[in-house]
């Protein structure tokens, strides 16, 4: 007799005990609860605001501001501008100090990080002292130091320090000549553009050439000549033939202060100096860690190939160290951007000072203003992170 072996499926479990279903159920429940929480909080806040007769909504952004701001990158006036424009002024001020700060702090941080590893005892110790002092003093104290102790004692406007070439320095800031462009001034940026394109082509050619023949070309010098030399040469030639594309408005003594020209506020300088030097101490440590992470064998191998110490650093060590450096470097960039909000202590009109200070107080709409400000910092941080992640992917080890 042939027995039929029935293909029995595993014992049927109840739908309720399916871990997958349960998982989804709890996820949905969590979302509902969190959503409900936000809903209750929001409706409750709106209700309370209405009961207390506190204005709400974002309409205030279109109201006339009525106050002035010391540093404005866009046209701004008390009479004609709105709170929304005041927000943009503050945002741009935050972005510009962060961007310039990131640029300089990267350079300074790399120099100090590499100096700390120098074989020269003096250089290494100076770098060490710099790092230990700067990163162990609160940033706010450093900002006040730069603002009050360093920039405060500068001479009054009537005794401005004349530094030549149209530069003046006094307690109201750094003044410099403002270039006024004539109609034919477009030739100079055009020359710069040609220089940039020329540099790009030359560098590619030099690289291909070097890979094929091993011959090296003075890339750095040629770059400098093309990018800087060409526009300057154009300007000089134009000036010699009598067409003067750029004239300068030099600051003059007014009743109270120098008038005309361009002015860089001491608040901006103090904030930039504070952020740059403070963050550089952290970046120096990141860089040092990154370089130490590259095994010594790499340096020795490069040395045995006949590379000079500078070349070893530039061509062998740094590219490998970058893989270790980039992620923590990103955090330092984010820190610098967020720390720029300490500007409020020294009167630099950044986003927090203008928007969360003056605008919040003049409109009284704390909830809206704080939400917008948090959203802005979150966005800036996420964008910075995203850019650094893209860069990180490019320098990361490619597995072959």
């Amino acid at each position, binding site marked *: 007799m042939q027995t039929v072996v029935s293909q029995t499926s595993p014992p049927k479990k109840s739908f309720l005990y399916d871990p997958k279903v349960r998982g989804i159920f709890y996820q949905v429940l969590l979302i509902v609860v969190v959503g409900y929480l936000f809903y209750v909080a929001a409706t409750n806040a709106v209700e309370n605001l209405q009961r207390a007769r506190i204005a709400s909504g974002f309409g205030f952004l279109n109201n006339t501001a009525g106050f*002035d701001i010391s540093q404005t990158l866009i046209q701004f006036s008390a009479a004609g501008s709105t709170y929304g424009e005041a927000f943009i002024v503050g945002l741009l001020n935050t972005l510009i100090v962060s961007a310039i700060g990131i640029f300089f702090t990267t350079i300074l941080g790399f120099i100090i990080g590499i100096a700390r590893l120098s074989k020269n005892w003096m250089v290494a110790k100076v770098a060490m002292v710099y790092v230990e002092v700067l990163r162990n003093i609160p940033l706010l104290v450093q900002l006040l130091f730069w603002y009050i102790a360093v920039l405060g004692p500068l001479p009054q406007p009537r005794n401005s320090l004349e530094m030549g070439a149209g530069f003046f320095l006094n307690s109201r800031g750094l003044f410099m000549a403002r270039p006024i462009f004539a109609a034919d001034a477009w030739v100079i940026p055009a020359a710069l553009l040609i220089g940039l394109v020329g540099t790009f082509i030359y560098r590619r050619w030099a690289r291909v050439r070097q890979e094929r023949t091993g011959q090296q070309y003075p890339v750095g010098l040629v770059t400098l000549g093309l990018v800087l030399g060409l526009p300057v040469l154009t300007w000089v030639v134009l000036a010699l033939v009598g067409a003067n594309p750029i004239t300068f408005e030099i600051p003059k003594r007014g009743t109270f202060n120098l008038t005309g020209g361009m002015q860089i506020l001491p608040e901006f300088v103090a904030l930039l100096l504070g952020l740059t030097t403070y963050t550089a101490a952290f970046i120096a440590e990141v860089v040092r860690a990154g370089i130490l992470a590259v095994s010594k064998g790499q340096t020795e191998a490069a040395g045995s190939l006949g590379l000079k110490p500078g070349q070893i650093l530039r061509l062998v060590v740094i590219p490998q160290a970058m893989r270790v450096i980039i992620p923590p470097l990103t955090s330092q960039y984010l820190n610098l951007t967020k720390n720029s909000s300490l500007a409020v202590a020294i*009167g630099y009109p950044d986003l927090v000072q203008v928007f969360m200070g003056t605008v919040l107080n003049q409109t009284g709409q704390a909830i809206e203003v704080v939400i917008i400000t948090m959203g802005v910092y979150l966005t800036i941080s996420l964008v910075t992170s995203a850019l650094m992640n893209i860069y990180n992917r490019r320098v990361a080890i490619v597995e072959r």
Partner: protein
Amino acid sequence: MELLGEQTNMKKALVSIAFGLTASLLATGASAQATLNSVKQKGFLTCGSNTGLAGFGLPDAQGNWTGLDVDLCRAIAAAIFDDPSKVRFIPLAAKDRFTALQSGEVDVLSRNSTKTMSRDTQLGLDFPVINYFDGQGFMVRKKLGVSSAKELNGASICTQQGTTTELNLADYFRANNMKYEVVAFATSDETFKAYDSGRCDAFTTDASGLYAERLRASAPDDHIVLPEIISKEPLGPAVRHGDNQWGDIVAWVHNAMLDAEELGVTKANVDQMKNSDNPEIKRLLGTEGKFGEAIGLTNDWAYRVIKHVGNYGESFEKNVGEGSRLKIKRGQNALWTKGGLQYGMPIR
């Protein structure tokens, strides 16, 4: 099943957080209605004060708060608790003050704040009385050789942000077709330090503040206050909108101090005055009528205020007038009977 247990715990935690949060949010809403009850329950008054302005709100060497605005808070505490020391002072920068009041961090804001229509109607605040009539002025260094605010074209001016001062400044320079550079700081302290260190040519705030801050300059005699007063600054205490009983208490404490001055009732003679036959004094000191009960206090509420703090004139002279270093004249703040604007509403 281990996993399941964890999830259940998490759910429980979330639900309790949800209830807790909801409850706390609702609670904030409810407490806005009865400030007096919550003050009585706490056992002290929280008073939003200046971060430090001589004559108006400043802790002395022993850490005791003194000043005209401080006295008003002490008077309210005296009316409620019969003890002027039952006040906690919370120093607030100009830009934080209204948020602190709106959110319930302080019960009353007595911090030389200007009453304006937008603050009264859009911020959810009320300004029940004006305890100091002021106006905005400018201070400059003598050696600048400036004798009028009209000569300030091109000057850089230090001011405190989030104030009516900041707005008046923009208006004034616009109206007079002059240019200026504004440097705004968060606290009055930072603002004045920046001016004193030479960052600005002029410093602007309410005239009373100019006299008070000048005392802190490294060389007070090197500075002069310009004659122009460019704005109206009615300064007074602020309370949350919607709690009328609490607003009444603040208003009537100030009125009682004015009435006491007008009737000649002082800290020194208030006990004698209790036996006075003058019906106005009798009503003020609670020997006749039940006016205190009507605002949720005891009937001797005004007696307590005068006994512990004194009348308006006494408080004025002690803090900002002849008895102080500021030596500010009564001017607009004299009683209406002496040509000023301070007018105590009748208690009857």
